Structures are given as C-alpha cells and as structure tokens.
C-alpha cells in the first residue's frame, strides 16, 4: 500500500555560529503513520523539528507540504499550515482552564464587535476536541490540577482543534507513568486512523518499536537512514545511532594510574538516582556517559554538595564525608565545572580576573579581607597565558568572550584552586574544535600531575578518546562499566538506552594490571 507523502524536508542545513548542527538533512512523512526520529543527544532532532515549527530559521533547503513549497517563518505560520508541536516541557498556562488553553489566541467571541469571550462555546468545542481523542478531561478544569499526562492530552487536543495534520511529539513519555503511556499510545492510534501524521522523538527504544511505522536516524547533524520499523531491531538501531568512524585525534597521554583516591558509596536521591557507587583512581579520567535525564548531572551535584543526596557517603583519602555545601567540597580539593557556563558557571557581568579568582579569593587577601589587586591580576594573567585565553586584558567582561574562552575561564578558576579531583560536566559543549582540543590537552596535563577527573559527557567520541574507564547511567542507575580497552560506542549506547547491562570483565582487569607495568608517556594517535 502506497501512502500519501504529506511532508518533505529537503537538504536542510543549519549552523549556530560556526558549529554546523544540521547538514543536508532530508526527511519524508507519510499520512496516517508515526515516524520516529532517533539519535543521540545533540544529533539534531530537536533542531530539525524547531525548523519545521518556525522556531529556528533554516540556512538552506526546502520544506514541502503536500508537494508545495512553504515558508515557515514562525510558530504561528506552522500552526496555520497544520503543523503542531507538543514540547517536552509543556507550554500550557497552568492557571487557565483547559478550554482557554486549547483556544489560546483564537478564542470564540461574541457580542458587538466580538468584545466578549464566548466561554460557553469554548467549553463545548473543547469538549468535542477532547472527545475526539477519547480524553476524559473536564474543559473547565485548570491545567494546574491535571496530571502531566492529562496536560499532554490537552496539548494534543489543541493540536487537533488547530486542524493540524502533522503533530510533532518531543519525548512525550519522559514524565508520565506507564499506564498513562498506554493511554497516550491509544490516542496516537486514534490519530493515525484519522489520517494524521506524527513525528515522534524519543530515546525509549521499546516504545519506538511498538508504535513506529518508520524510523529515521540522525547522527551528528546528518541523516543516516530511514527504514520501516519492521525491518529494524535494537542492535541495528544502536549501531546506526553511534556507528560513526572515529578519526578524531585526542591529546591523551598515558598516565600511570594509581590507587583509589575517591569513592562514592550508595548515593541515592528519590526519583533522580539510586544506589550509585563508584571509585576514582589517581591519574584516572573516569567518564560518565548516558542520555539526557539519566541523572548524571544530579549525581555530580550531589557529590559536590550542591544538592546533597538522601543517603550515601563519600570516602576521600580514607576518610568519610558528605558535603553539604560546595564550600566543603572545595576545601577538600574538589572542583566542579558545570554543564551550563552561562547559567551556573560564570558571572558574565564581572571581568575575567574576578571570575578566575572568586573561588580562591581568600588566598589573595591581606588579613583575609583586603584583596591584593596586584597579586590577583598576576594570577589571572598567569592563567590567561597558561590556558591561552584569547583576550586583550584580564579586565574584559567575561560575557564578551566566545564560548570556548569562557569555558577556559571556568577551568582557570578551578585550576587556580589546585584541586585533586575535577568534575567536568559536558566540558566541551558548544565550543569550537580548536578550543575543544585545547581543553583535552589541559585535561591530560592535569591528570599527568597525579590528579583525577570525572567527566560527564554526551559526546561519545570524547568519552572514548579521553576516558580510562567509563560508567554508563540509565534512568538514575549505573547500567554499564567499561575499561578503555573494551569500550565501544555500541556498548555505551546499549547500556544508556537500558537494553543491556555490563560490568568489567576480570580478564580485562588482569590485562590492565599487566600493562600498567609498561607505561610510557606517548600520545595516542588513534583509538
């Protein structure tokens, strides 16, 4: 049976700054089907969908609706063309009624000149829309009193009432219970029977194989393939998602790995992560891989005392701790480069020097209180040189630097505290290739001095290239542990998606011990 193609995206390109996030991506959607869009974090799925919805502008390419080229300049235009997107973070207004949300911006009016909102008609129409997707929700209820799943159904009803033919769902099952997932799937089946076409973004492979008709895989901004779901299985899908060729070079020097210096024991926090235990050795770079929302950042924040865990403890140099504030963690020689340098890393309205010295300011003070400005400047300029931060002076506003240089300022801040253990959360996100490789070099130099790194990253090449050992997290648990010698992209992805579990094999451990004896100091060219 040949189905009618309702949407074609052809040769879509998109760059942010000089980072190319979509490269010549094409995509076809058929009437009455569900088309799953798969890929790692940052593969370009959301960007592609935001272009379809007019949130981002494409740099090149065409979008055709039922064979006709269209120009989608904003979300309203997308809506008018029958494209609706249901965002991962629901965008409904919590204190308005279900009906008011469904008809937001296109209220039914009555009275002279449409002065008044016709509440009665809106409730009636909302009721019809909700009935259409078999959702038993009172149109008069405020969104605030609905569950996440119900609010989602309201968004779907809104899409239907906009006469949407194409509905994009971004991770719709990430925050709802399994019985609610069943309800959602029934709704999706209803929509398909009505001839709607659905684009579905999700990391949950089991779901995909239950409901998808077709699957398109994106990787690093490029389309890998589109295949009928019936011709795919978990293994094929994983290998398509991660099967990139690894030809990037990493500045990874061989460092002899010493004894265990740091242990996390049985860290748990309700709903975020449970029973997380791992250790970290001297000179080691330990990677933590996983998909978005796996709980990696939460674990790091718990370790560093930002949000202490419900239970668990830390062993550092043979003593037990549980840090309640970052201050305690810093005092014990930890440092934390956060995931989002703008949001939690830097004070963008302060200058570079102030950002570098802030975590260790007491050291540059007379009597512990009066800042020695000359000394402060000297330290800042020292690190600007060491990390080759590109700036005319240490008094430049940090907000005016490029992403890569900003990230180096954060690193300078922590390096100036002389920590023994650094936690790096997505250390190279959103920065250019040159800055990336400099950060890898700094990491290698840092562990060569006998320090250790925990690196959280969603970029598999960097995990594979830099880490001596890799932990994989899935829904708040550690589902995989790999040594450098045995780690593969497929292995990590399978554990990250929760379709496999893996522990380090004894054979590898023995081999590693053997190798430790013959460590040189050469640089890996390939991995």
């Amino acid at each position, binding site marked *: 049976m040949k189905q009618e193609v309702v949407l074609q995206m052809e040769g879509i390109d998109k760059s942010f700054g000089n980072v190319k996030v979509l490269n010549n991506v094409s995509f076809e959607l058929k009437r009455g089907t569900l088309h799953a869009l798969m890929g790692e974090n940052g593969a370009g799925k959301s960007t592609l969908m935001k272009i379809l919805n007019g949130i981002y502008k494409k740099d090149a390419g065409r979008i055709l609706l039922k064979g006709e080229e269209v120009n989608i300049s904003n979300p309203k235009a997308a809506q008018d063309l029958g494209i609706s997107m249901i965002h991962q973070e629901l965008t409904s207004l919590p204190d308005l009624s279900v009906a008011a949300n469904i008809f937001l911006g296109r209220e039914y009016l009555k009275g002279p000149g449409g002065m008044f909102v016709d509440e009665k008609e809106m409730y009636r129409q909302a009721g019809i829309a909700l009935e259409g997707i078999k959702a038993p929700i009172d149109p008069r209820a405020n969104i605030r009193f609905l569950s996440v799943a119900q609010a989602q159904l309201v968004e779907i009803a809104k899409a239907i009432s906009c006469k949407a033919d194409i509905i994009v769902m971004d991770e719709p099952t990430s925050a709802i219970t399994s019985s609610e997932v069943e309800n959602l799937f029934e709704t999706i089946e209803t929509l398909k029977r009505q001839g709607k076409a659905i684009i579905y973004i999700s990391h949950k492979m089991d779901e995909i194989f239950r409901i998808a008709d077709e699957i398109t895989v994106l990787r690093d901004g490029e389309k890998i393939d589109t295949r009928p779901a019936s011709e795919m299985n978990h293994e094929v899908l994983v290998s398509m998602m991660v099967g990139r060729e690894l030809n990037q070079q990493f500045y990874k020097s061989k460092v002899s790995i010493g004894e265990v210096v740091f242990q996390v024991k049985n860290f748990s926090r309700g709903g975020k992560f449970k029973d997380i235990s791992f250790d970290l050795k001297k000179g080691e770079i330990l990677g933590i891989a996983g998909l978005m929302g796996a709980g990696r950042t939460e674990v790091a924040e718990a370790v*560093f005392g*930002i949000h202490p865990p419900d239970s668990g403890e830390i062993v550092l140099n043979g003593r037990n701790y549980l840090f309640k*504030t*970052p*201050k305690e*963690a*810093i*005092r014990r020689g930890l440092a*934390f480069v*956060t995931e989002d340098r703008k*949001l*939690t*890393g*830097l*004070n*963008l*309205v*302060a*200058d570079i020097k*102030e950002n570098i010295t*802030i*975590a260790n*300011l*007491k050291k540059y*003070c007379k009597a*512990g*209180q*009066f*800042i020695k*400005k000359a000394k402060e400047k000297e330290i800042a300029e020292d690190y600007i040189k060491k990390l080759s931060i590109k700036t*005319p*002076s240490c*008094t*430049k*506003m940090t907000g005016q630097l490029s992403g890569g240089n900003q990230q180096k300022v954060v690193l300078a*801040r922590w390096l100036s505290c002389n920590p023994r253990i650094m936690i790096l959360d997505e250390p190279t996100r959103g920065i250019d290739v040159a800055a990336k490789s400099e950060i890898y070099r700094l990491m290698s130099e840092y562990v060569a001095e006998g320090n250790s790194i925990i690196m959280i990253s969603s970029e598999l090449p960097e995990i594979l290239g830099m880490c001596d050992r890799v932990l994989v997290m899935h829904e708040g648990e550690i589902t995989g542990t790999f040594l450098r010698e045995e780690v593969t992209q497929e292995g990590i992805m399978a554990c990250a998606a929760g379709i496999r579990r893996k522990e380090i094999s004894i054979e590898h451990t023995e081999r590693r011990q053997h190798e430790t004896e013959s460590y040189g100091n050469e640089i890996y060219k390939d991995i």
Partner: protein
Amino acid sequence: MKQNHTVMKYIKIFKIYLVFLALFVIMTFASPAFFTKMNILNLLRQLSINGIIATGMTFVIITGGIDLSVGSILALSSIVACDFIHPNTYPIIVPILIALTIGAVCGGINGVIIAKGKVPAFIVTMGMMTICRGMTLMYNNGKAITNFDASFKVIGGGTLLSIPIPIYILVFTMLAGGVLLGKMRLGRYVYAVGGNEASAKISGINVDRIIICVYVIAGILSALAGIVLSSRVITATATAGDGYELDAIAAVVIGGTSLSGGVGSVAGTLAGVLIIGVLNNGLDLLNVPSYYQQVIQGVIIIGSVFVDQYFKSKKQN
C-alpha cells in the same frame, strides 16, 4: 589599550559626574544664591541623609535585591533612640548604639527571610516598611520626641573646622562603603552573588550570609541616617524618613547601578546623590514649587536609565 576595560568603567561613572557638573553650572548661573559657601554647606548637609541611606542601598541593589524599609527603619530606630537622650540621662553613645542595633536587627530579619525563606526582597522589605512604621507610631502614640540633651544636637547641627558634622559622617560612610565594595572580599562576593547566584554558590560562597549581610548594612546605615536627621531637626517624629527609600533607590539607579544586580559602585551612587541634591536645592532657590520638582526628578530617573540602555543596545548592534 591594555587597561581599556577598567578605563571604560571609570568613563561610565565620569559621565554621571559630567551630568552633575552641568547641573551645577546651570544652577550657579540661574541663581546667585546657589554658589555661596552657606548654600553649598547647607546643600551637602541636606543630601548627607540620602547619601548615607543610598550607600547601604547600593549594596542591596548590587546583589539584585531592593530595600523598601529603609525609611521606616530610620524612623523606628531614631524614635526609640531619642527616648534615651532626654537631658541628663544617658551618655550619647547609648542612644546611638540602640539605634544602630535596631537598624541591624530589622535589616537582619529582612535578610534572613529573603535568603533562607526565599521570599522576594520587594515583598519582605515592603512588609518590614509597614511593620516598622506601625511600631514607630505605637512607640510614642504617634507623638514626636523633642526634649534632647545638648550633646546630641552636635551630631546634626555641629561643625568641625566650619564644616557641618553630617558631611564628615557622609564622607566616612561612603569611603567605608567604597572600600568594602571595591577592595574587600565581602564586596567582591556581593558582586558575585548579584551577577550569578548559582555560580557564586558553586564557587564556595555562602550566598545566604552575603544576602543577610547587605540588608544588615542597609539597616545600620538607615539608623545612622536617622540619628543624623533627628539630631539636625531636634525632633524624632513618627513620620520621619517617609519616602526616603525612593530617593535612595533613585540615587543608586542614576549612579549606574543595575537593578538586575552585579553592577554598580558607591562612587556612582555619590554622583546620583549629588545630582538629586543639587536639583532639589537649586529648584528650591529658584522658587520652583515642589510639585514640579517631583516631576523633574522622575524625568531624570527614567531619562538616565533610558540613555544608558539606549547606548548599550546601540553598541550591541
């Protein structure tokens, strides 16, 4: 060129002083009574109250907060303190300490509720404004206290080397505030908290303590202003300091401190205080009715921030 960014910061403050200077020159030509020793000293004594309060307000606003209770704290601390300065009762230091303590406690309560309770500063200090005003009225049934010991009158009315004492207090307060903000660790942390609270916390700063600190400073300086004011007018009234919070905020904002936090200086605030002071004094001399003065002050507040934003957005394009 190497120091260009520090220089730019100074240029910004310098521009505000240029506005002040322009205003000063205009007033000198407009009114012969303006540029006389008498009037200048009088002008400085008048603006010392706002200057002291605005210094504390600068700290608060740099953290991204606001303090609406300064005027009421001024009234409460001075009426209680003035009950201890009837002739031949306590030495002068006793009422002063009482006033400063009340200021510190009220500010501390503000700070604790804002930092620990996560209640917006606007709400907390608005509540404190009403509470302190109510307590001031309760304290002496709304009546003023006027029976002062002669030694106390020196603070507001006395002179040293023919310069009024309040000017010394203002200069000392601003110098101390400037050093604290610009040269000391606490000041750096105040900027850090205002610039990015999450980043400050992760860098090991006790953010709650810094926030409590700035409201305590604002409270203490309000009380200090209260002592100067009641000593100068030889009365402590229940309505003293009414609306002073707005003058202080105006001075801080005109002085280039950003309401969104992280940016500002005491030097800028001084410029703001001088501009408002010269404006009020000059317009008084020119017999401009106070209603007009209010309109003009409002225009200057909006205008100064507008011009600042305009150039900022122009530079970005």
